[in-house]
């Protein structure tokens, strides 16, 4: 596993304790799993996605990633409706390893309550949690 200092954790993203990242743009939140998650999971061979239009509460399981014979659930950083899924992951799940913040994004969400986004961890708080 990477050392904490070696993790790529962009300053402009929010993070969850379950190692997702979230980015707000024009009222829509893009969500994926962060560098720590993709590194400790190993080679990702499948991403189970929700459907556009599905709605979830904060912390609900919205899908899973399968790596090295292990299925790990992934969770909603905020409540909301899925507006888009990354269909490219169906044929190329390895994008989550190769480009977790760009081509490896997982879902886009229209949030119910923007304050849930604001309350997510910033980089510093997330790193403190990892160290804790």
């Amino acid at each position, binding site marked *: 596993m990477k050392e904490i200092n070696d993790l790529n954790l962009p300053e402009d993203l929010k993070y969850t304790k379950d190692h997702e990242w979230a980015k707000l743009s024009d009222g829509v939140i893009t969500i994926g799993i962060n560098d720590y998650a993709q590194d*400790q*999971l*190993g080679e990702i061979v499948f991403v*189970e996605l929700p459907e556009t239009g599905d709605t979830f509460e904060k912390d609900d399981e919205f899908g899973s990633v*399968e790596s*090295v*014979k*292990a*299925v*790990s659930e992934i969770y909603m950083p905020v409540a909301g409706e899925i507006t888009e899924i990354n269909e490219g992951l169906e044929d190329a799940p390895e994008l989550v390893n190769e480009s977790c913040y760009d081509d490896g994004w997982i879902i886009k969400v229209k949030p119910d309550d923007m304050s849930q986004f604001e309350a997510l961890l910033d980089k510093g708080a997330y790193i403190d949690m990892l160290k804790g």
Partner: protein
Amino acid sequence: MPERIVPGSFKKKHLAIFQDLGVLEYKKALELQIRIQQEKIDKIIEEDYLFFVEHQCVFTLGRRGGKENLTVSKKFLSAQNIDIIQTNRGGNITYHCPGQAVMYPVIDLEKNKIGVKDFVYGLEEIMKLTANDYDINADRNKKNNGIWVGNAKLGSVGIAIKRGISMHGLALNINPDLEPFSWINPCGLSDISITSIGKEKAQSKSMGKNYDFSMDRIKNSFIKHFSSVFDYIIR
């Protein structure tokens, strides 16, 4: 003088409770793991658990399925009185039966800072070391996870993780009837064979040495190797 602590080497051991479930129906072991996993998530129980078990004959499917890798009809399996059970673990179709040692660690990977790929690697290591205890040279194979003797698979892994807590685990063939493995493409692979510790010893030239294939013997190997690989105290 105070004891000198080298940075990074001061690592506390984790603690797990080992339970031998004997021969238990797959569904009951599954229910037990789901319950313990949920109670750990809900912080009702803190302890990590290792469940050691043999199952009655059963085929199980991974979260993504694997029924297509069944090479006999369901009618045939019904006649053999063997169920097919859908599960939430990683991997494809596999087979469990008496003579196969199964261990399900329901442990807090997140809290103990054990990464998923390291966890799977460690479970493979436990099976490899157990095979070594029988003077069998088993190893990983780039074809697939698990542990192999050449082109024959000796042991498998499959895991599901919820809120950082693991369930499912490893299955190592000790001395089972291997024929039902020929009714599937194990793990979704068609060009492999399956082996067991008993079969390897029967084939090897090193006969004359009496090996103990009992589950008690295997249990001790699993406890010893889990403890060393993952830095656990097991009680």
